[in-house]
């Protein structure tokens, strides 16, 4: 049965890849049991392929840069707030400028680490990873897509950032599908409003489309590749509907909403954002509570779709 947790999909896929490719190494900053990067080291013969870097994220990223220069394919994992945030300068200076072949996994991303509160919830990582030239940014909708993207990352050259959710939920994309960077994927056809979504919000976009069935025809578009993003594809989708909504577990500033709005900057298409309204997260007792608190529910997408539909 397919894995339903993105972290497990990350670890299991890396384990498979490590068996096939001797150059892949996995670095963790004392969180390998959580990012699941550590799954690699339990396999006899692969113990030294998981490299424990201690609680030193900056050094981990630059070290990975060095490893890549001598032929290794390093995957660095830690929580998204520490990978993208604490090690921002190392990603920019050591890795991205030189287009080094370093793969970064921002784990427990968004508010999926609901208990730990604002310090551990990345409401901003897509924005500041997306703005770095040369760096690709991928946000899988589910565990199946996570596996596909990890395989792609291992196979293709260049610096890449992967955003991984902490919590399990049912897959909405097929197991074994090939990941194509740059391309938004239409999961459900519709003619009134298109919802561009990533991560868990793609699940909620499908739910919103269903809730609106018979009233508003909603096209649901999964955007696992925030960067690169094929502008023509986004425009073609926007032109097939009356207006657009974006939905992401991230600030409304600089994330998927920003990427879609930038792509549509010469189009006469209204775009509404569903995301976190320029604020930090909070501790919560479960994932649904924090998603609701931050305005990231199916109902929020329904409201946004209605708003756009009523405008036109």
């Amino acid at each position, binding site marked *: 049965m397919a894995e339903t947790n993105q972290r497990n999909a990350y670890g299991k896929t890396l384990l498979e890849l490590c068996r096939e490719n001797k150059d892949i190494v996995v670095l963790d900053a004392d969180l390998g049991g959580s990012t699941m990067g550590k799954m690699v080291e339990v396999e006899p013969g692969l113990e030294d392929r998981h490299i424990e*870097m*201690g609680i030193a994220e*900056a050094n981990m990223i*630059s070290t990975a840069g*060095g*490893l890549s220069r*001598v*032929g290794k394919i390093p995957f660095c994992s830690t929580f998204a707030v520490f990978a993208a945030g604490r090690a921002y300068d190392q990603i920019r200076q*050591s890795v991205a400028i*030189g287009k080094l072949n370093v793969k970064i996994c921002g784990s427990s991303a968004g508010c999926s680490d609901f208990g730990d509160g604002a310090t551990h919830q990345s409401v901003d990582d897509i924005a500041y990873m997306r703005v770095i030239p040369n760096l690709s940014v991928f946000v899988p909708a589910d565990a199946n897509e996570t596996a596909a993207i990890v395989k792609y990352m291992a196979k293709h050259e260049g610096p890449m950032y992967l955003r991984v959710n902490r919590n399990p939920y049912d897959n909405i994309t097929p197991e074994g599908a090939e990941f194509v960077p740059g391309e938004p994927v239409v999961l459900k056809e519709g003619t009134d409003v298109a919802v561009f979504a990533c991560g868990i919000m793609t699940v909620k976009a499908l739910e919103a489309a269903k809730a609106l069935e018979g009233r508003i025809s909603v096209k649901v578009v999964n955007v696992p590749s925030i960067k690169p993003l094929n502008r023509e594809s986004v425009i073609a989708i926007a032109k097939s509907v009356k207006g657009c909504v974006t939905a992401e577990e991230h600030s409304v500033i600089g994330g998927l909403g920003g990427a879609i709005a930038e792509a549509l900057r010469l189009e006469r298409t209204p775009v509404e954002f569903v995301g976190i309204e320029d604020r930090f997260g909070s501790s919560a007792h479960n994932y649904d509570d924090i998603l609701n608190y931050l305005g990231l529910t199916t109902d929020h997408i329904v409201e946004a779709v209605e708003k756009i539909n009523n405008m036109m």
Partner: protein
Amino acid sequence: MAYGEEMIKALKDRGQQLRRDCIRCIGVGVAGHVGGSCSSADLVAALYFHKMKVDPENPEWEGRDYFLLSKGHVAILQYAALAERGFFPVDDLPHCKDIGFYLQGHPHLGTPGIEAGTGSLGQGLSLGSGMALGLKMDGKPNRVYVLVGDGEMDEGQIWEAAMSSSAKKLDNLCAIIDNNGLQAQGRIEDRLPSEPIADKWRAFGWNVIEIDGHNMEEILTALDEAEGCKGRPTAIVAHTVKGKGISFAENQVGFHNRALTKEEYDKALEELA
């Protein structure tokens, strides 16, 4: 003398040649990193013209040793060494910092002989540590040298890399600390005093060798000792003089990144002749 007098003299001359190249490249009226280039010149000459295995015809040769300029602001010094060693034409040096040119203001991957981009201080040692780790995992004999500025030791990442490199027993890694005592806008001892430098590296698990960074025999001896040390990385603490070889620039804070007047330019080249 363990090393022939002629070789020592030739390497000293190389150091002076690199200083002259730097001055010519910086020229008159345009800011350039005179001080730190001159303090590191003898160390860099010893590496490129004696110690390191490199192939100018094939910069990415698998058997090469790696050099990283963690104090990336003295890129011009490394460019001078690479040019004199034959990686690219010496005549290209004055075009450093031309828009889009392969000789950027800080080392940039893609320039022949440059192993990684450096310049955001504190990151070069980690990059070198990663190279050393990867080479060691593959059982390769290549060595990795990282030139670190003493001012750069303010950066916390240096100490992350120091811990990590000794924990991973990277005896193929050698950090060379250019201890000239000055940083961009003042004396280190007036900012974040870095002494005792040698004790700090020792405490972090490194083999430490202290030398006069302008004494070529001491430099060569230290580099050989570093290669012979097993089970831990080596830090060579090289006591140097910022602006070495140019009387009016020696040990002067103002010559970190400064434009030379025509008179200063001529005098510098005369003294370095």
